[in-house]
């Protein structure tokens, strides 16, 4: 078994961890760094529950990323979005539009939506639906999720807080 000592920045906090070669980023985030806001869903890159952002707000599947390959990388999870008690506009829109049922997909959905709005601040409904492919909601509450992304897009113009997106 190979051991690797890596430096990560998780939600702005530097972390030095020793990981095994076969450990995924998801496993290390949840079980070593206690970042349990990142969810395990399918483990095969299909449901998007484990979506985190790396530099430049690029979404990746933590379940399909070997932790040992992430040395020096900066990772943002849903817990790193809020600015103190002020929620990120995407989080606030998910609350306001009730885009949450059981809530399990929500961390991944929020991160994917943040990535979308960072790339394309004014997406059409079709663009939102296309971009959210790869994130599955078991409760099938897609209409409200799409609405929340539209609300967040409208509100992002006024947003001036936080250091992400």
């Amino acid at each position, binding site marked *: 078994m190979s051991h690797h000592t890596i430096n990560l920045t998780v939600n702005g906090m530097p972390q030095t961890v020793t990981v095994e070669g*076969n450990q995924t980023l998801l496993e290390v985030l949840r079980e070593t760094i206690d970042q349990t806001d990142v969810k395990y869903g399918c483990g095969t890159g299909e449901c998007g529950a484990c979506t985190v952002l*790396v530099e430049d707000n690029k979404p990746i599947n933590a379940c399909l990323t070997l932790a040992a390959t992430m*040395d020096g990388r900066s990772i943002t999870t849903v817990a790193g979005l809020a600015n103190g008690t002020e929620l990120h506009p995407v989080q606030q829109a998910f609350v306001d539009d009730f885009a949450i049922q059981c809530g399990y997909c929500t961390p991944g959905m929020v991160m994917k939506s943040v990535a979308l709005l960072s790339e394309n601040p004014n997406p059409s409904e079709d663009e939102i639906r296309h971009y959210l492919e790869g994130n599955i909601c078991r409760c099938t509450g897609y209409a409200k999720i799409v609405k929340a992304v539209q609300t967040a897009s409208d509100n992002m113009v006024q947003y001036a807080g936080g250091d992400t997106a």
Partner: protein
Amino acid sequence: MSTRVLTNFDLQVPKDIPEALEILDNYQDRITPVAGGSDMLVAWKLGVESGNAMSVTALPDLNYLTYDDNDGLRVGALATIDQLLNSDDVKNKYPALWKAAEIFATHQIKNTATLVGNCLRASPAGDASATAYALGATLTFVSKSGGERKVHIDDLFTGYAQTSRKPSELATELSIPAPGSGSRSAFTRVTRVNEDLAKLNVAAYLEMDGDTCTQARLVMGCVGPTLLRLPKCEALLKGSKVDDATLDAVANTVNDEITPIDDQRSTAEYRRSVAPVFLKRTILKALS
């Protein structure tokens, strides 16, 4: 077997190419080089024996994507599908490849999966690899004892998930010639929803002189153990006017060149039914 925890394996993460070549030279076929890992990790989680793995993600200077009229497109081994999608050169000069990048899996996967990795997985259902095949790509391999070796993609796929890469070799680049005069390309595929793997896919590269086709490379996926070139169909196109009669002849020939099977995504019967339709549509899309 679990999708949560990977079975034990040793992972090497070399920091430069000489170190990677040393590892490959020592381990030979007992180690699997892996880039984005989006497909390999799923395979390992679902029970494929992982053995040892070598991540190439820390190798410097391999994430380039460049184009010029002499060298064509050069794609480093770590250039991602997302990089292809964001390249105006790919969009304007290689529309088939750009389309394959656009429909490729999900945005999370596009950010980690690489074109070189997609080709070396040698899946018969590969989308980006099907277009690289139609566009006549060349792979560059390096090894400790053999130096550099170029392999044309026509000589890459040797069987299901098998390539002509030697165990000691590291793939460093995929290059695609600059588009020839009057060239067109297109890519289509059949799926239930976009993020599915294809039931069938088609990539076409054509060079046209007016209405006459002077060069054709046609590739179909999901209809054999590897992605398949369609040489009989290509021969019908080359030197002919691409009119209804030629397209009908091509459509009537494709089933002589493919060997589809029933699997979890489709049936041989369905694939044989849609292969002529989608081949014709792809050629027409390239010409439009």
